[in-house]
């Protein structure tokens, strides 16, 4: 509707308050899309779901299309062939979007130091939160989600709307 854009441009307490509320809402309603790469971590999110603990961690039910997601969780080592599929999925996600790399293998290749595994998801797409561990424990994952939510809450609303160049049309 354009209200967010107007508020983002204003550097006054109203704009900042609006930014805080919007980012708080975003951090408590993340819709994850779990990118399975055949690793051992994919069960963990479904186990959280089975124990009905998603809401307290700020997550909605995982969605089945990247076009509806705002959090991409890459769990497991990334193949050189899967890398292009990952880029394709990431490009379909609408802004604002965040990426979490789950496990040592996703963060930097982990134990797979060979020709077939990409050295970290960060070589393909920008990563916001890395959760280390092989495999990471439940506490590590929850701590990682907390770090991500803190990052989201501390954003400025104006990050979403970078200033337009002079030659663009004004609407």
């Amino acid at each position, binding site marked *: 509707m354009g209200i967010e854009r107007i508020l983002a441009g204003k550097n006054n307490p109203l704009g900042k308050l609006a930014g805080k509320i919007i980012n708080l809402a975003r951090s408590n309603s993340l819709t994850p899309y779990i990118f399975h790469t055949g690793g051992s971590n994919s069960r963990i999110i479904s186990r959280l779901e089975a124990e009905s603990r998603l809401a307290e961690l700020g997550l909605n039910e995982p969605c089945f299309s990247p076009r509806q997601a705002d959090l991409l969780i890459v769990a497991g080592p990334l193949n*050189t*062939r899967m*890398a*292009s*599929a990952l*880029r*394709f999925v990431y490009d379909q996600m609408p802004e604002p979007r965040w990426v979490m790399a789950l496990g040592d293998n996703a963060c930097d290749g982990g134990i797979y*130091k*060979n*020709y*077939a595994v*990409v*050295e970290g998801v960060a*070589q393909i797409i920008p990563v916001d939160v890395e959760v280390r561990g092989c495999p990471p424990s439940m506490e590590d994952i929850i701590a990682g989600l907390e770090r991500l939510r803190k990052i989201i809450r501390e954003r400025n609303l104006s990050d979403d709307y970078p200033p337009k160049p002079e030659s663009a049309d004004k609407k």
Partner: protein
Amino acid sequence: MNDFSATLKKACSEAILAEQNSPDGIVMTIKADKIRQVFETLAGRGTSDGRMLLTDISAVNIEENDCRFELYYHVFLIDLHLRLTLKCRVEGDKIDSIADIMPAALMPEREIFDMFGLKFRGHGNLPRLFMHNDFEGHPLLREYPLMKRQILLEQTKFE
């Protein structure tokens, strides 16, 4: 066990070079260009007592002057409870495919081509199995460096 190996030796005598016993069965060394003859004999033994399962084909890249690869065909003869391993040394980089006799060989042969570069004549379609089509080289050869990555950057086609 002895009857079976005797019958097989009689049927393909010029193909079998050596035979030894292993804990689970028999290991036979055969000539690489006679592999189809051996499998046709094995497959033609009928279904009443000749059921067999080709479980796997393994390849080893040995660095010797006369041959580069050694292939192992692992066959299990269900009715005789016998594991038969057929070993052959491949000179050059081509060998006959047995995929039309035993469809179970389709995937292992593709994998061996992908990983080693050993071509199977008569396989039909021999595309790479695991690595993407733009990958140059064959990873499991001893001379391929461990860390040489070739990331597929173009988008996968969705047609």
